[in-house]
């Protein structure tokens, strides 16, 4: 299956790793790029300082657990509380995954090897998903380990922790597909950052406004749907339905039932469709 480009100078008779290895290499390369590994120091500043900010609540939480035997903040609400940092990470790093290949028009070079568009897009999405999952799940895990080591009175909140990590994976898939789809629309990095953050801030700003407008004019159950515009609250609503955690919104409640998780799946499918359409066009240029 795999092919070695033989231009007649020197023959290759080493091991042939197959096309899965190609996709894996592309994914690992993209994942390293998200964190600026293998790039100059100034590319590492942003991802690592944002990852460090994600650890602040963990440090505070472990310190208060150790000193005054109290939990501040819960596992299920961690992603919602830190949503601005996660969104900035997504906005600043998503273009670094997709923009350079589009700008330098090297996609036909990739596709001249046994890599299909689906595998290329899959590797990019997987890299961003793993990066976002690590960003949220590592602090959660450190907090849980701290919780176990401090040995708080009562049983450890294992169920809540596992639910939060599961939802971190769902959130990572949702954010990476939508974020990459938005970032891939432009080959310029700055515009990619701006378009991702614009969509996030619009959803965050509009959600409470829509809720308030509908709630105050009597459409109370309709107002609850307003919260689902924001991706973090959408995933939180799915968590409430799946794991029975408390809702982390300023006011009101989410609409119950499986609707939030269905919306998440629909959004992921739509973003993947946009991505593959975009790359099919880019490949033919």
């Amino acid at each position, binding site marked *: 299956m795999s092919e070695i480009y033989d231009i007649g100078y020197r023959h290759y008779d080493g091991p042939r790793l197959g096309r899965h290895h190609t996709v894996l290499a592309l994914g690992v390369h993209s994942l390293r790029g998200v964190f600026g590994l293998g790039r100059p120091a100034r590319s590492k*500043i942003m991802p690592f300082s944002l990852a460090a900010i994600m650890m602040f609540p963990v440090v505070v939480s472990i310190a208060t657990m150790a000193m005054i035997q109290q939990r501040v903040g819960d596992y299920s609400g961690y992603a919602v509380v830190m949503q601005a940092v996660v969104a900035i990470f997504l*906005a600043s790093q998503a273009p670094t995954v997709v923009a350079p290949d589009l700008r330098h028009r090297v996609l036909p070079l990739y596709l001249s090897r046994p890599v299909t568009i689906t595998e290329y897009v899959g590797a990019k999405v997987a890299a961003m998903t793993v990066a976002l999952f690590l960003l949220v799940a590592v602090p959660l895990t450190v907090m849980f380990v701290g919780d176990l080591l401090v040995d708080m009175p009562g049983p450890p909140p294992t169920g809540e922790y596992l639910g939060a990590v599961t939802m971190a994976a769902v959130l990572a898939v949702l954010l990476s597909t939508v974020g990459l789809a938005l970032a891939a629309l432009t080959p*310029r990095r700055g*515009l990619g950052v*701006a378009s991702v953050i614009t969509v996030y*801030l619009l959803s965050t700003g509009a959600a409470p*406004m829509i809720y308030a407008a*509908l709630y105050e004019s009597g459409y109370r159950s309709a107002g609850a749907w307003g919260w689902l515009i924001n991706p973090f609250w959408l995933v939180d609503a799915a968590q409430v339905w799946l794991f029975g955690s408390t809702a982390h919104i300023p006011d009101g409640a989410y609409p119950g039932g499986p609707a939030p998780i269905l919306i998440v799946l629909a959004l992921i499918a739509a973003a993947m469709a946009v991505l593959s359409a975009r790359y099919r066009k880019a490949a033919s240029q």
Partner: protein
Amino acid sequence: MNTVVAGITYRALLGRRRVVLLLLLPLALIALALMFSFFGGGDQRTAVLLMQNFAIGTLLPLLGLIAGTGVIAPEIDDGTIIHLMSKPISRPLVAWTKFAVAASLVAVFAAVPTYLAAWILVGNEDGIAAGFALGTLVAGIAYAAVFLLLGVVTRHAVTIGIIYALVWESLVGSLVPGAKRFSIQQWGQTVADQVVTSPFFEAEVTLAFAVPALVVVTVAAVFWAGRRLRVFSLTGDE
């Protein structure tokens, strides 16, 4: 003002898909205003809330960011700024021209929609529409200048600008009272307060501080951007 540079910059920002990004925010504001008035929430309290939280709090910094960095950062990013730098046009003049373009875009895409949104909700009551349009205009001009400077100084201008707008203006500004004095949004609200006579709105910073601060920040940022352009050196891509 160099009209050729201005024309090229307008074309770069308004061409093709990029204008969608600039249109998205004002359209969302007007859509929210229409929704409020449709569901009967068209009172002064709602209008002030929408103006403070959405028009000045979300739309304005984002538009300032997109316009302010958009006039220069993409050119630096892909290296085409070298063609502009090699022309016999003084670099401070380039900075002033780019600033004028960014400021005009903020006026069209932030101040005008703000007026429209407030007008949809409450008409011309108590000067809410005119006041917030004025506040958005002056604060937007200051944002355009600051983010233009940021675009010249660093390649991560958009990310740093977002962190400034989100963390400093929203988070620190709402937690630490003293930090409010050093927030462009608050200065804009002070200017708006001079026209708005609604009892639901009160600015936190005095006019005697806000106006000099706006002028100093705007002029200093554009001046410094011009200075930075004079000693500008293109560094390699990462």
